């Protein structure tokens, strides 16, 4: 078996352990992510799914283990963290749009302030991205004037405006009213089809089936089962996964 080419991996996590005080939240997570790969993470609440992806873009610190991106370890200083986060986009469950800025300004803040881009260039790209998520006509509205689904799509555009190599989604549809879930999922499907590498924490099984290259099942801070969406959902092997799916599909 030929050794894997290191460059082929976008992200490599080895032996990741994280504690919140005395609580052992992540217990030895190993993961490789290749460019263009779409990964869905599922599992019961408290299983560490959010902690895992928040460690990837360094919103959380971890006590043991390594994370490397394209072969180099993620740095610990504030400047290095900011540089890492410019390459990774994140979409939050509660959108976290900046209420005092318009949709367009939400998107251009990052490129202009963090990358030093010219405002006109950033605006052009932001406009194109808002077009891509089908919300270009709301560019000059404030988040308070948009629906939940519209806000989340602006949040996706905001993350894309930084031109990231990897997109992280932390339960992006869990806080939405049911009728708005579809518009956001359609946006994410389109994004996946354009080749974006993404790690998505979600309960939406239909989305996972359609888009995911791999589905990871996590519980008690570790990956217990992983494989193709079809295998994981229809032929679960681990006891916990069977129990989880049973509760979910009832």
């Amino acid at each position, binding site marked *: 078996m030929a050794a894997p080419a290191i460059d082929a991996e976008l992200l490599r996590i080895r032996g990741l352990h994280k504690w919140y005080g005395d609580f052992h939240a992540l217990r030895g997570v190993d993961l490789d992510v290749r460019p263009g790969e779409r990964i869905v993470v599922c599992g019961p609440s408290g299983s560490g799914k959010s902690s895992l992806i928040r460690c990837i873009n360094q919103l959380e610190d971890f006590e043991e283990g390594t994370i490397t991106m394209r072969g180099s370890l993620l740095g610990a200083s504030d400047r290095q963290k*900011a540089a890492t*986060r410019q390459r990774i*986009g994140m979409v939050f469950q509660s959108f*976290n749009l*900046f209420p005092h800025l318009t949709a367009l300004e939400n998107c251009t803040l990052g490129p202009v302030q*963090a990358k030093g881009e010219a405002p006109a260039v950033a605006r052009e790209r932001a406009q194109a991205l808002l077009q891509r998520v089908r919300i270009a006509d709301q560019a000059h509205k404030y988040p308070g*004037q948009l629906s939940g689904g519209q806000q989340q799509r602006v949040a996706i555009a905001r993350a894309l405006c930084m031109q990231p190599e990897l997109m992280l989604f932390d339960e992006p549809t869990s806080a939405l009213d049911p009728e708005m879930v579809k518009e956001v999922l359609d946006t994410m499907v389109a994004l996946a089809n354009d080749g974006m590498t993404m790690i998505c924490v979600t309960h939406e099984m239909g989305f996972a089936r359609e888009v995911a290259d791999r589905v990871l099942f996590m519980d008690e801070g570790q990956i217990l089962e992983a494989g193709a969406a079809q295998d994981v959902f229809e032929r679960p092997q681990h006891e916990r996964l069977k129990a989880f799916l049973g509760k979910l599909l009832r």
Partner: protein
Amino acid sequence: MPGSRRRRPEVLRHWLWQAVAFAVAAALIVLAFRATSANLSARGVASGFAFLEQVARVPVSNASIPFDPGVDSYGRALLVGIVNTIKVAAAAIVLATLLGVLVGAGKLALNPLVRAVCGLYVDVMRNVPVLLHIFVWYMVLLALPGPADALQLGDWLLLSNRGLFLPGWLLEDGHLVFALPHVDGLEIVAGTSMSPEYAALLVGITTYAAAFVAEIVRGAILAIPKGQWEAGYAVGLRRSVVFRKIAFPQAVRSALPPLTSEYLGIVKNSSLAVAIGYQDLVAVGNSMLFETGQAIEVMAIIVAFYIAVSLLVSFAMELVGRRAALAQR
């Protein structure tokens, strides 16, 4: 139905009670008025506001607008007082806000030394009465050397027991010149001068109020949801940029009501001028009260002034608040 509710006997009873209460209050006021008038006329004190046009006999120091005792009226003296009050209150509001924002941000800094020093500042300044602040600064300023040995800080600041002197516009030989302060024999010539009384009042009020502004700012920043900070970091922004562009604009909105209270407090604290001889409105009013004996009229003017200023400041802050709210929608 609303119409029938109005005719219920309860409402009539309420109005009856209120009418009785007001009748009693009115009677008391009339009695007080009659007693006061009797006392005043027994002491030979005049009534009415005509005294405002009489010539004042006592000089008013620290006059910002020209005032000539023996020539100008009491009304003008009060005007001097009003201008002085506004001078110190407006300057204190601006300076206290600037200093308060810096100290408040410092209390939230990552650097432990900065945090400790700012925390110490707030705790010490807040727990000592503002009048004590003013007395201490007045004592320090009066202990400065005389004009001949005035302390010089750079080219632009001269400190002596005659006051603080800064560069400003001067009238020299009929021309308007921008000059640095300099010593001329036993005098100091400068464009901008602050008497020790004014300086002590300003510095005392400012350092005291800045501690409260710092806590208001800190509270407003801490009230911002953590998700806002995380979203800023997730887009690759540094902590200082997230603070400037995301946290601070949102904090301003929630900080406005307590800031308004604090600004009104600054205006009220300016009245402590009377304790160190700075001629603000209360100080001028006080000496006028003793000269003319027309306590009620003078007090009424002073109270009316403070109510007017209070309404003005509240209204101005309301406008600022509306502008900030529009920006967020």
